[in-house]
């Protein structure tokens, strides 16, 4: 049984079609990177998989069951979503933010936190390297630290499938590396991750599968090595790229400016 299965997906916000003919499936433990230019439908695809948006046509299944047949609470026990930017209205402490990840596992009224819940919050913070933030106000953290806390919130939710939207957007190289390490560890722990990326090199180093989107259509889906070729990159992004082999046998993608 696939963790996530998408069949013949069609979706439009208005008259213009945003996503068309999208079909792919992920096995447990896969790290799938969704790549494509701005406006190609990456975030929309993640929202459809999370059941936030409803497709016009096609089927999305999570663990073999249609996503629209899940109760929110049940779906939240198997699928977590790290959104692009967490922007709480009020200045909550990091603890208050992370504990919202426990909602699907607690009673609806007057939920109280047990010792094991507090432990789960602690482990989520440790796994994202943010244990020192526990009592700090979320608004006082840097963008990279906030992203780590967003991931910790979903880790506390303890789901086998995690969707991540643009994990490295607007981050400096130091934070890109630290977020990469966090995601790598999650993948090594057996989580299925589907993440939308702008940073091709981050996707190259993290993902075992790549889904290419171009103008809302699926350009290709397969292993990172198969898909991330100079020809494919040029066709998808409309600019020429060069693949460079690094000293540790990793490949890097560099756009050609001249």
């Amino acid at each position, binding site marked *: 049984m696939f963790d996530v299965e998408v069949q013949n997906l069609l979706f439009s916000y208005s008259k213009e079609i945003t996503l068309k003919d999208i079909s792919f499936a992920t096995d447990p433990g896969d790290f799938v990177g969704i790549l494509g230019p701005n406006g190609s439908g990456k975030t929309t695809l993640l*929202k459809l998989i*999370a*059941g*936030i948006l409803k497709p016009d046509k096609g089927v999305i299944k999570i663990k073999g069951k249609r996503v629209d047949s899940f*109760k*929110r*609470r*049940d*779906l*939240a*026990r198997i*699928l*977590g*979503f790290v*959104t692009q930017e*967490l*922007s*709480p*209205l*009020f*200045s*909550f402490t990091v603890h*208050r*933010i992370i*504990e*919202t*990840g426990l*909602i*699907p596992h*607690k009673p*609806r*009224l*007057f*939920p109280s936190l047990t010792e094991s819940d507090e432990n789960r919050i602690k482990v989520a913070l440790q796994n994202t390297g943010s244990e020192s933030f526990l009592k700090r106000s979320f*608004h006082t953290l840097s963008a990279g630290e906030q992203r780590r806390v967003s991931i910790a919130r979903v880790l506390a*939710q303890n789901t086998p499938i995690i969707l991540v939207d643009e994990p490295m957007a607007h981050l400096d190289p130091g934070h890109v590396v630290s977020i990469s390490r966090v995601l790598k560890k999650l993948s090594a722990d057996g989580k299925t991750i589907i993440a939308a990326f702008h940073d091709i090199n981050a996707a190259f180093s993290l993902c075992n599968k790549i889904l290419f989107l171009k103008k809302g259509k699926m350009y290709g889906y397969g292993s990172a090595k198969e898909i991330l070729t100079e020809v494919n990159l040029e066709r998808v992004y409309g600019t020429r790229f060069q693949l460079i082999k690094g000293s540790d046998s990793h490949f890097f993608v560099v756009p050609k400016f001249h």
Partner: protein
Amino acid sequence: MTRKFLIASVLLLSALLLGICLGSVHIPVAEVLRSVVEKTRWSQILWNVRFPRVLLSVIAGAGLSVVGNAFQGLLKNPLVDPYLLGISSGASFGAVVAIFLAEVLNASFLREVPTLTFAFGIVAALLALILARRQNTVPVTELILSGVLINILFSAATVLFVMLAKRNITHVYMWLFGTFSGTGWRDIPVPLLSVAGFTILTSGLGMRLNAMSLGETEAMTSGVEVEKLKMLVYITGTFTTAAIVSRTGMIGFVGLIVPHMARRIFGNDHRISIPTSAVLGGLLLCTCDVISRTALSPSEIPVGVITAFVGAPVMFVLLRRSGRSV
């Protein structure tokens, strides 16, 4: 935290006692306590006028503050108040119609029984909800806009009605700025039960309201049935507000500002800020009512005017002290 809550509770009890003692006739504390256990010359005024009035001011302050707090968190908007769904203008229209009919039909009971006010408040809120509804969801922007629209429509209808009726508008004027004048025990049970019920419900839903304050997507993917939660809080909050407004008239400011005061003093967690909003709201409105009936005694200043004069400087001090945005 516990110390701050204790201080606020002691202040509330002091305001209650002050509200009972002070008025057009000042009654000593000892006489008040004696009147509770035996019949005194003050018993009549205390039991029939002061007790219900002070109690309603606390209930109304608590209720408006709790509804304001829950609506702000739910809609992720710090400028929302309990009158969001047009309930104030709907209730105002109902009050004007009731006052008019009471005079025309010589049926004074219409002025005393807040049925029409309550009914029009609920009708306005339901209309706003229906107008905002899109394919089983109620988007926040649409809801705020439809609330504004309903407010404008009912306000215009109220002005037109007052003009066409060509009647003395003193009662209407008092109602539009809020008053606890003429409160009796009959005015207590419905607001008391609805405010207590709403405070318990939303405190219990505090963690979910925290998730809503992160954003609807975050709440949804954390397992919150967002649309069901919104409808539950809108409907119960609207009922609570209508139960208060139909007895006290329009009291502004409390439902908007007290939640922010509670957050700044006790923190942003809804499990804490909702019950503490109730205490602070009760304290503020009870104090303001005492001022409203003693400042220019024997005349009474509408309580809504006092809430603004007392609440604004307090909020200003809190803003300066914390030095951060909400």
